[in-house]
């Protein structure tokens, strides 16, 4: 119990320090923190659902884009907090409908299905804009600074991690471990698998929608090609898997180094970025196959065993 309290205090202090950082950094530092926090939240939210169920979802950008578009459409009609709530609700609604329809798919079928979903949403938004509103591309002129966006994302990241922590300790968390290991067994233990999966998918998708909504004011101009960029989905998956999608801190520990790596590569090797990035990916698969956190745990265990042996 005391351990938990200490943990919470430490995390709280870290959050405070992070919230304070923009005052110490220039615009670029804030932008970096903002982007990093955005991906930490995306990867963590993604792992809420995909970690325990082992469903690899490529629908991240569908919800991210829905969030951004909601802000673009409503930013002049409503006060900002209400826009965010609406975006979250829309994300939740879409997630529930999609979840009900799709969660019986398994394995790679779900992977490609979720990708198809993202593309479908993008195509439909495009078609709607072209044929109904007669424009494509919307402007967001909201007076929200990068620091404010960063704070919102930081809060959302904290909430996401809190939810993840709470789930892992609750009965649902136990149930989820069983689903990941063996769905048939899980079904026999009296767990309502589909309801748990649906709930997780909905929570994860809502958070992702909010990330899109919060980040949108940064771009001024939005069109489907910009906010439904499939790279977002791919990066989220890679970051979470690199860190370890089954651990609370895993996605974060995947997102931060990868994000900094991308930044460093594109700054220093703009022309060889792809090649170096690709080689690093391959190296990661061979060197840290189960994620950074699992590797760290292994090393730690080994060190302990050595200590015990001595």
């Amino acid at each position: 119990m005391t351990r938990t309290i200490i943990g919470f205090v430490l995390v709280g202090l870290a959050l405070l320090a992070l919230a304070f950082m923009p005052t110490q950094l220039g615009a670029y530092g804030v932008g970096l923190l903002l982007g990093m926090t955005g991906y930490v939240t995306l990867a963590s939210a993604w792992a809420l659902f995909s970690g325990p169920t082992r469903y690899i979802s490529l629908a991240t950008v569908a919800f991210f884009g829905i969030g951004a578009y909601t802000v673009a459409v409503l930013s002049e009609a409503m006060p900002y907090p209400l826009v965010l709530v609406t975006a979250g609700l829309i994300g939740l609604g879409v997630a529930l409908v999609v979840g009900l329809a799709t969660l019986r798919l398994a394995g790679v079928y779900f992977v490609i299905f979720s990708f198809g979903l993202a593309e479908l949403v993008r195509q439909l938004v495009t078609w709607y804009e072209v044929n109904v509103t007669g424009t494509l591309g919307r402007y967001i002129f909201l007076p929200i600074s990068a620091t404010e966006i960063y704070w919102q994302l930081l809060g959302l990241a904290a909430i996401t991690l809190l939810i993840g922590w709470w789930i892992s300790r609750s009965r649902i968390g136990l149930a989820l471990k069983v689903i990941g290991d063996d769905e048939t067994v899980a079904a026999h233990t009296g767990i309502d698998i589909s309801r748990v999966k649906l709930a997780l998918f909905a929570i994860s998708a809502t958070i992702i929608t909010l990330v899109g909504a919060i980040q949108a004011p940064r771009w001024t101009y939005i069109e489907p090609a910009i906010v439904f960029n499939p790279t977002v989905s791919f990066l989220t998956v890679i970051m979470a898997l690199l860190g370890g999608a089954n651990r609370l801190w895993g996605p974060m520990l995947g997102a931060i180094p990868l994000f900094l790596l991308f930044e460093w590569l594109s700054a220093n090797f703009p022309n060889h970025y792809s090649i170096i990035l690709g080689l690093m990916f391959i190296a990661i698969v061979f060197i840290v196959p189960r994620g950074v956190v699992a590797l760290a745990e292994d090393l730690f265990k080994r060190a302990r065993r050595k200590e015990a042996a001595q």
Partner: protein
Amino acid sequence: MLLTALISGLVLGGTYALVAMGLTLQYGISRIMNLAYGEITIFAAFSAFILFSTFGINPLLGMAIVLPGAFVFGYLIYGVMMQPLVSRSSRTGSLEVDSILATFGLLFVIQGVMLITFGSNYTSYNYLNFGVNVLGANIAANRLLAFALAIVIGGVLFLVLTRTRWGTTIRAIAVAPASAPLVGINVNRTARFAFALGTMLAASGGVMVSMYQTFNASMGVVFTMKALVIVIMGGLGNLMGALVAGLLLGLVETFVATYVDPGLTLASTYLIFLVVLLWKPAGLFGKAAGR
């Protein structure tokens, strides 16, 4: 009008199927989810373009150079990159995730090499670009050729898989990779061969595509995704499934463009894909278990 739409839809679908069949071999038999598939296609398209524009070798002859090259490349990649993952996964069972990550890396490497070698420009050339009258419908000769090639490759592979001993071996691996060695099948060698064959099919798709489509170094992922959609829709590892799903997508696109609204062609592609999966979660020709 109806007949024209039907025929051009089938031909379009044939070109889709051609690109997708290699992927279904790679996933169905080698169990590698190859995200770098489209990059191979684009690389082959660039090769065909270079051979044609610089050396004056027509793309059909060019295939004689590109295809063996692709086969060797696939063979090497499987040996160097995939084999360690496969042998590792017998313990951890994580081949799917590992292969996604590793080929995602490969995607970037190939794309980066192409950006440096060929630049980022759109590339296009004309070969066999004239109309052929098929039952009153005017079809581009290069697309017709791609369609024919898809049917021939699909047919030959289907016969090989169902009628020969080697085909039986391959199917045994696809169905039960764990028990195949018990009956004396060298899973590793066959998987490697299938992967190389799949790479070769990707390249043949690329050469055909280069004749009628504009491409650039960043477009690989478009082909990968289209191929994945078709493969999943048809049922993993099922060649006939890929062919049928490809044709179906071609028909849907053409009919929607002709009778509904060209703005909805891509939306309808994904819609039909989603509907098929909801109706048959393992694809049109897949086994019911889902995997």
